[in-house]
């Protein structure tokens, strides 16, 4: 998937997407992270041919989204943000209809519907109307609908928004399984944890533009090193601990509010715990506890946009 200089301007001159460039490799899970109103859904709608770009180019599975929309639609599966499912239909009916929309013959669509209902754990609910499904069941059905024709590229637009933790984890498991089968997944999310858990690479979008991109680890490394916090048993030993750890990283100055705490910034992160314990032992400093604090994607978001992800939605909409 390749996007170059993508722009989408709505009535009133609002630029929901503003010169976006991105590239998604075959077989990867690409996490598209940003607050509400950042332009994520607009990008998904353009890439799935539901919306025309105002300017720029985009191709999915090697096909141009404007010139060769039908080929794009054959290659993709889409689960949109608001699971657009007819509440009066049953899960099985929807799957069979979706199969027909993708060219499956009746018998094949019937078989595939049964297979997918089983895959997403909805076999028992398959003949019930979707109006009676829980939010998690609807999302799982939506995912199954997107998989009917075994798409090369799967678009998941905020697939777990509003779901309880159990349903969220179940959906993550399914996305990982699809990735293992070789499906390319373009996942938009406003949840940091989701991006970290699933995505091989993350693109951060703010005000319609990509402001950072990379693996979660490389993005976090950009904003700082992990910090190992050591709580010594006796505050009087803190200074001795700082001397002992000086060679293992950048030791932070004493914090009068927490005299027993010693903080060391080190790129080694968790791997630094053993050397730190050994060094403290050699200097006869008793340790109460050790914690490793690593930068989060929210720190990355803060560094590149100046606001936290959770607070950014309000700013985006008032901007």
């Amino acid at each position: 998937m390749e996007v170059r200089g993508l722009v989408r301007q709505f009535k009133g001159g609002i630029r929901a997407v503003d010169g976006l460039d991105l590239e998604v490799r075959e077989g990867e899970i690409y996490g598209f992270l940003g607050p509400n109103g950042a332009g994520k859904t607009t990008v998904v709608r353009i890439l799935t041919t539901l919306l025309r770009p105002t300017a720029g180019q985009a191709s999915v599975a090697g096909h141009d989204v404007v010139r060769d929309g039908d080929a794009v639609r054959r290659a993709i599966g889409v689960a949109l943000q608001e699971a657009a499912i007819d509440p009066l239909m049953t899960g099985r009916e929807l799957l069979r209809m979706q199969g027909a929309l993708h060219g499956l013959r009746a018998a094949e669509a019937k078989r595939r519907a049964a297979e997918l209902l089983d895959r997403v754990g909805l076999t028992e609910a398959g003949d019930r109307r979707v109006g009676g499904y829980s939010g998690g069941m609807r999302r799982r059905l939506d995912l199954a609908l997107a998989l009917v024709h075994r798409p090369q590229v799967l678009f998941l637009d905020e697939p777990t928004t509003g779901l309880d933790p159990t349903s969220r984890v179940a959906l993550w498991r399914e996305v990982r399984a699809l990735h293992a089968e070789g499906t390319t997944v373009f996942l938009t999310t406003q949840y940091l944890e989701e991006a970290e858990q699933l995505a091989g690479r993350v693109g951060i979008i703010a005000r319609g533009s990509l402001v950072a991109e990379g693996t979660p680890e490389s993005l976090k490394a950009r904003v700082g090193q992990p910090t190992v916090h050591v709580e010594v048993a006796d505050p009087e030993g803190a200074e001795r601990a700082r001397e002992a750890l000086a060679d293992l990283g950048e030791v932070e100055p004493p914090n009068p509010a927490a005299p027993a705490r010693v903080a060391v910034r080190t790129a080694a992160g968790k791997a630094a715990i053993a050397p730190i314990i050994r060094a403290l032992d050699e200097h006869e400093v008793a340790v109460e506890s050790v914690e490793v604090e690593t930068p989060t994607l929210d720190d990355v978001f803060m560094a590149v946009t100046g606001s936290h992800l959770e607070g950014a939605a309000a700013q985006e909409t008032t901007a």
Partner: protein
Amino acid sequence: MSLGREWRVVMALGRRATSVQFRRAQLLMPTFVLPLMLLAVIASGTSAAQGLRGFPDVASYLTFVVPGTIVQGTILAGLTAGIAMASDIEFGFFDRLLAAPVHRTSLVLGRLFGTLTLALLQSSLFLLVALVFGAHYPGGVPGALATVALAGLTAVGTGGISAAIALRTGSLSLLQSLFPFMFVLLFTAPAFFPRELLAPVLEDVSVFNPLTYVVEGVRGLLAGDAELGDPAAGFAAAAGLAVATTALATLAMRERLRRT
């Protein structure tokens, strides 16, 4: 594009349209109940019209007005097509259809296939109910079957109009507000009185209303008497309406996609 593939798409969407409309009782009931209520009121309240000079020689006034009921049914069935389509647009289901690799015209035809099915069932029911209450069909079973077919074709035409409006506006509330306006089509056709007994203005307007020829065609079919109405003209008007409005809905679809 393979025709066989598109046919499967139309059938699948038609099946969905048919089954879902029978699960939406609040939308479906009026399409069955209103025409029968109007038939009861008209047949009992204005049956004296049969004695007017110029009124054709028919077995009963009830028999004469059954075609009006059938055409009213086709108008309501057509309107439900637009309402269902606008509902799909408003609630996002239409995006699911647009994201599939199907010809856009198939999406319109699938919806109209549901309308066709509804109209076939409706008109069969209306004929049976009227028969039970004393209507006579000298045209026999062939006349009744041809009537049902003509009703189906007409409903595709009225469905095309409402589908075009739904695609152009995407507004469910607008479609719902069209209910009264659709009756203008009915009352500017000789649904309950012969054309000659309509007010001069209505008589002039009725010439341009395709439903005029459908009503008269049904009348001719049921009576087995082409003097009462020309079935060929009815089928020609209905087919013309169906082709024109399906094309209109397809154009509205293209315009909608162009605007996105």
